[in-house]
């Protein structure tokens, strides 16, 4: 894991001299958590995860000069990833709604090793894409509500409502 200082040095090298090696180190540092988030957001679609993750890093490289350092790089990267996911859904399913649970169930290729594993993934499937991203960012990526708001652009009140709703749905799914 990169420290804040190391991260800022790498970003400065990318901006000042288009240092691809520095950007490669950033990709190495963040690819695991980004790919894990996208894998669970897409309900286990490994191919889509790989595509979205690559597109996220390519977009990050192209627009790195617009990174002002006000948010952490990780927050900025995850925001790009969420926007890439929304763009993908709009292209593939222009009529599907991000607030509707189960709208993307057909995408999934759920793989599970244990019963508990299956239960958690079933519980995630019961959430809408917006609820799912909020839940993954808050619980899996351990981001505070303010960071979730920055990444998704969803108002804080709505994020808290989604988390409350998600807890209720998860409790129902996990008890079943």
């Amino acid at each position, binding site marked *: 894991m990169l420290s804040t200082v190391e991260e800022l040095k790498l970003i400065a090298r990318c901006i000042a001299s288009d240092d691809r090696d520095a950007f490669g180190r950033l*990709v190495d540092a963040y*690819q695991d958590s980004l790919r894990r988030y996208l894998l669970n957001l897409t309900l286990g679609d490994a191919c889509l995860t790989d595509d979205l993750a690559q597109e996220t890093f390519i977009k990050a490289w192209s627009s790195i000069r617009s990174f002002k350092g006000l948010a952490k790089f990780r927050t900025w990267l995850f925001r790009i990833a969420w926007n890439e996911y929304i763009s993908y859904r709009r292209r593939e399913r222009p009529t599907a709604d991000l607030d509707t649970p189960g709208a993307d169930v057909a995408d999934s290729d759920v793989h599970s090793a244990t019963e508990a594993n299956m239960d958690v993934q079933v519980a995630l499937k019961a959430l809408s894409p917006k609820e799912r991203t909020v839940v993954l960012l808050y619980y899996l990526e351990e981001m505070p509500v303010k960071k979730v708001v920055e990444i998704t652009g969803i108002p804080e009140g709505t994020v808290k409502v989604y988390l409350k709703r998600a807890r209720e749905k998860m409790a129902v799914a996990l008890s079943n």
Partner: protein
Amino acid sequence: MMDKQDKEIARLFKQELPAAGKDPWFTRRVMNRLPHRQSRRMSPVEVACIIAVCLLIIVAFIIEGTIIISSQQIFVRDIVVMSTLTMMSLGVGGWIISPYLKN
């Protein structure tokens, strides 16, 4: 702040949700797809300033050269002025060609 239920859900997520498998080639694939940066074009104002500075340096060289030839003597002042003009020429020249050398 996470309460007890939140912590339990977080623990379950970390334990049970799949992680994307290790992919040693992922970074290489991303790097191969990165677009090359486009070099910044100079604005007309920047070009005009560079031409003006170059002309000033050339004029200064000519004037100083004329002074040295007409006086038929070289003073310390002449050496300092010529050295300064040479350094300025090298500096401006280096600044102009450095983007091309970098590419």
